[in-house]
């Protein structure tokens, strides 16, 4: 196996885009400011110079239209990748995402596929306030026909995106703004991460933490602090929210009998509600020695002030405290 390369999450996304476009003529990118500007978060960077304007396409500010054109192109032999500048603006495009892209294959009796990839950065932490900081993955995971992935590391950002581009179904990739600048080891070349397979990032016998997105690294950090206190946590990163690898999650929860579910999204009907529901109706249920514990964003819009913004979503300390209570009380 080739040597691992250290790069940022954002570079890893860009590398996946370049690899896919170089290998497959049908792949192209479109979105607001993905060209000369290089993307609002610099993700597409210099791709326009490497692959040309035809394949790295700057659009008008028209999210519904962009996704709609993506749907039409995907139905007719192309493999479009659409960037929505902030995942909050998927609200604008929701009809084409949920009523068109997600349903066409089924609704047309299987006659057509819609191999469309939608990349959208989510999450808070940049002081951009309520309309630029949401974690909306639950909206998409609720709609049959969409696949939803949420890479938490650079290698997953690359590998899941490569799998998404090859998938014959619409796949939403929820990237995270705070992760873009973090570095990680990435496998070189056209290396995929399969959609639908969770990753156990750490093992420990006292409790199982299931976390997504930016909360994965926070949970791993928390696990180290807990370890110093003698509490050993397993950390599971589902990576794909839909289709969900329930098998791995259930197995890891059964091993410890205690589960802490950590997400950045607001608590009510966030992704972890589904994980909790799955655990409470499957064989995991009888192995639980403690009630399930969700640690999630407050049910509020993300506030602007930095101290309020931090208070709105789970931080390392919150995870440590919740895990400690769970283990000590049960």
């Amino acid at each position, binding site marked *: 196996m080739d040597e691992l390369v250290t790069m940022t999450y954002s570079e890893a996304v860009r590398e996946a885009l370049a690899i896919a476009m170089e290998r497959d003529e049908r792949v*192209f990118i479109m979105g607001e400011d993905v060209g000369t500007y290089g993307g609002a978060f610099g993700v597409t960077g210099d791709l326009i110079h490497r692959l040309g304007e*035809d*394949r790295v*396409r700057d*659009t*008008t500010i*028209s*999210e*519904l*239209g*962009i*996704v*709609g*054109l*993506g*749907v*039409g*192109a*995907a*139905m*007719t*032999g*192309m493999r*479009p990748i659409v960037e929505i500048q902030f995942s909050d603006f998927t609200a604008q495009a929701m*009809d*084409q995402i949920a*009523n*068109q892209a997600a349903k*066409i*294959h*089924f*609704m*047309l*009796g*299987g*006659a*057509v*596929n819609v191999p469309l990839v939608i990349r959208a950065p989510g999450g808070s932490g940049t002081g951009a306030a309520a309309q630029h900081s949401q974690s909306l993955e639950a909206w998409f995971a609720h709609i*049959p*026909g969409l*696949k939803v992935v949420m890479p938490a590391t650079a290698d997953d950002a690359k590998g899941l995106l490569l799998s998404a581009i*090859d*998938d*014959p*179904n619409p796949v939403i990739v929820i990237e995270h703004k705070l992760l873009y600048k973090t570095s990680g080891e990435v496998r070189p070349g056209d290396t995929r991460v399969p*959609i639908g397979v969770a990753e156990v990032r750490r093992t420990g016998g006292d409790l199982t933490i299931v976390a997504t997105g930016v909360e994965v690294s926070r949970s791993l950090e928390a696990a180290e602090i807990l370890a110093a206190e003698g509490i050993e946590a397993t950390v599971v990163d589902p990576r794909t929210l839909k289709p969900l690898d329930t098998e791995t999650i259930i197995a890891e929860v059964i091993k410890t009998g205690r589960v802490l579910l950590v997400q950045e999204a607001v608590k009510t009907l966030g992704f972890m509600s589904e994980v909790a529901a799955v655990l409470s109706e499957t064989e995991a249920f009888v192995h639980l020695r403690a009630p399930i514990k969700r640690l999630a964003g407050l049910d509020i819009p993300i506030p602007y002030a930095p101290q309020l913004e931090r208070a709105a979503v789970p931080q390392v300390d919150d995870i440590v405290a919740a895990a400690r209570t769970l283990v000590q009380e049960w």
Partner: protein
Amino acid sequence: MTTPIVQDRDRARESLRTMWRIRRFEEAVEDLYGRGLMHGTMHLSIGQEAVPTAACQALNRDDYITSTHRGHGHCIAKGADLERMMAELLAKETGYCRGRGGSMHIADTETGNLGANGIVAGGVPIAAGAALSAKLRGTGQVALAFHGDGAMGEGAWHEGVVLAAMWQLPVVFLCENNLYGMSMSSERAFNLPQLSDRAKGYGIPGVTVDGNDLQAVYDVTAEAVERARNGGGPTFIEAKTYRWRGHSKSDKNLYRTREEIDEWRLKDPIVRFELETVEAGTLSEADLEAVRDEVRTELRGAVQRANAAPDARPDDLLASVYAEVGA
């Protein structure tokens, strides 16, 4: 200039056949519906047959169309099979969508029909996307988005046109202005003498045409398609026409008058074209009768075979949501 359709025996007959296929298909649907043999809802385009018939003649088989909730005409004109359409409406496994889509979702990729759409204006950006795809693949294909007048109130319509105009995509936006979006009159809604005045705002050509005049619709569509195919970008066409029936089964026609409906029934596009062909000496009364008979027979067979087909099967529902990876 090529021979007018009305003077071209084959094309005239073909045009009539298509219009009759649409009319008879929808009459059959209405009948099945009325007798409780068909489920769901239905949107009939009776009275509007000349528009899709003419427009699709200006397209190649591999050109794309996107269609609407009122899509039987578009589907038939682009070349779909009546039996598979009827089977779909009858919720049969042999239908275009295996009974999963029904009237509002029939598609026929073989003939470039990317699908009816239950969402008003939903097909407009999709057509632009198909045009972008054709452009990127360099195939010379054109896409045509059928849409209603009411669709022009939607953001989806606007965004589809904005992007198509910016990229000068090979797409035609064909508005069937049947004077109403459900109960809202397009005159009241849009504050415009003619809807094609909208085109200027996107820097693309716009034209209004009598939608019950088959030749006129053909001419403007052919010009638009040629422009698109030659890299000249999108065109907007408004074809003024009228739906004789209510919007859907629940319509009590409170928003329009009996007189208005009657007036438009006199402008029946099929009768009009039949008269024109006879006047031009292209077809005889006997020819007309032959076309009608042919279509009636075809339709009867289609309904019978569709009826006899197996019902849609519920067994693999969960497995039908996603295309298989590697497929």
